[in-house]
């Protein structure tokens, strides 16, 4: 699939934003006094900015963005519609928490709102993943690794930014130890995901696509058109396959070893100096985000659509 930058930016940034908001909401639910006024507002604000930036980027992908409001209507069947509804709904607890932090509120209210925010953040990311996992025509997305992948990547991104914000504001933050655990889990999951998509035997072949397999081996000799069309442009993206291995290693390196080393360094040099940990947090947030961009680019670029079977007879797993 063609990796559209607007969609990659949307899924990475809204993932980081909701990861951040989830962790902040959870922290509030457990300990309403966890964060001071300004520190809390910065966490919320950065989360909201990421989410809004992601949503705005996603509208760049649309042919008729002025009608985007219509996308809230079909939540009964469409994951994309559900995603829109959930992400707008998540602004309600965000605004309420901001108000409570600003004016002061009792612990129970903050706890409840924190839990609500965490729930909406998680639901939104689940809906984002649902957009992809529901597409049977793209086996690399229609499998059990994709949902945990989206959740874990959102948490890792959110935790890295939460750590950075905490270092700079002195407020609540994701601890480096959590980041180490998330980084390891992400790499393990990605490893198994890639192994799965490389090895899975495709249910569809050019023979089932044409129904001509009963006569022998089918080969395309002439495509319907000499130039590209929408399908070959959108779904016949080839570029990534060449550098796939290297890019996978880059993603793993950024999300795994680099992040783990930075977190461990920060743990080692915590007291009495403050700046080494702050620098590590800064580097980790940047590297994790970069790693997520590479990972997401591959998620699109390496996913093959079954319609390409009609063209050129490429088997789903001829890389």
């Amino acid at each position: 699939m063609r990796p559209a930058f607007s969609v990659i930016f949307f899924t990475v940034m809204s993932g980081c934003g909701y990861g951040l908001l989830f962790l902040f909401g959870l922290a509030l639910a457990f300990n309403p006094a966890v964060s001071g006024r300004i520190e809390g507002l910065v966490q919320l604000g950065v989360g909201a900015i990421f989410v809004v930036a992601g949503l705005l980027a996603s509208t760049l992908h649309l042919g008729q963005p002025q009608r985007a409001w219509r996308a809230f209507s079909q939540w009964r069947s469409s994951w994309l519609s559900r995603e829109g509804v959930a992400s707008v709904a998540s602004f309600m607890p965000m605004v309420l928490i901001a108000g409570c932090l600003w004016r002061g509120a009792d612990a129970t209210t903050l706890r409840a709102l924190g839990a609500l925010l965490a729930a909406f953040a998680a639901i939104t990311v689940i809906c984002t993943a649902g957009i992809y996992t529901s597409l049977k025509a793209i086996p690399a997305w229609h499998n059990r690794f994709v949902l945990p992948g989206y959740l874990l990547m959102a948490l890792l991104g959110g935790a890295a930014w939460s750590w950075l914000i905490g270092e700079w504001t002195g407020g609540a933050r994701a601890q480096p130890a959590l980041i180490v655990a998330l980084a390891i889990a992400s790499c393990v999951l990605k490893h198994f995901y890639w192994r799965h998509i490389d090895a899975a035997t495709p249910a569809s072949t050019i023979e089932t696509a044409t129904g001509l397999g009963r006569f022998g081996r089918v080969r395309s000799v002439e495509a319907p058109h000499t130039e590209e069309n929408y399908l070959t442009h959108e779904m016949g993206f080839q570029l990534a396959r060449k550098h796939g291995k290297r890019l996978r290693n880059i993603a793993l390196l950024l999300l795994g070893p680099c992040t783990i080393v930075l977190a461990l360094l920060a743990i080692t040099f915590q007291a009495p100096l403050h700046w080494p940990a702050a620098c590590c947090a800064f580097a980790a947030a940047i590297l994790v985000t970069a790693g997520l961009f590479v990972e997401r680019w591959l998620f699109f670029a390496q996913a093959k659509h079954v319609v390409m079977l009609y063209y050129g007879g490429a088997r789903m797993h001829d890389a």
Partner: protein
Amino acid sequence: MTMLPPPTSKKLGLVIDLDICVGCHACAVACKEWNDGGQFGPLPDANPYGAEPLGVWFNRVHTYEIEPKEKGAPAMTVHFPRSCLHCETPDCVTVCPTGASYKRAEDGIVLVDEDKCIGCKLCSWACPYGAREYSEQRGTMQKCTLCVDRIYNESFEEIDRQPACVMACPTRARHFGDLGDADSAVSKLVAERGGYDLMPEMGYKPVNKYLPPRPRRDGCAAEPTPAQEEKVDFSTSPLLRWIDKVLSR
């Protein structure tokens, strides 16, 4: 609404005979021509007279070669028109966030409402058959309408109330009718010729059916038979024996 309607009793669709399609692309051209001016048009092209024209077609004709299972048998060429199959349970409808993509309860035709579509392209990702093409010029998704603006058009003679592709086909490889009615001509044709579904494993239950090529006189598309050498007795005539020897060299 992008929830699927309850199973429709009327299932309008096409039956495509791969045995006689000659790959002339007349159906594809007739489709483009009709729909460019029809109710769902236009179908604008980018760079139409340039080096790399790009535009929406609802119907595309592929050509495949089949290497027979049997060694040494001649290869078979099959021309293969591909368009929307108006599936019974298609995800292209349910994934749509706006309600623009829908399946009609009255006859099962799958359509895009041009005025609601936001051009998110998700439905084209959900279609395994490549039946939906996005128009960069219009900013919306376009697809085969089964010529809904012809088949119910009362200003046409009865005989012309058929999809443009069916009318255009010079070999009559395309048939239009109600596949939900077991007594219709198309249903009978499917039963008689073993019409089949494309990619049944997707679970979309296509309405359109394809008729497989018939066995050929040259033996391709037939069950493999062991090749036999002709045995002739030349022992009676020295002349024939000599000719056989020369020719066998």
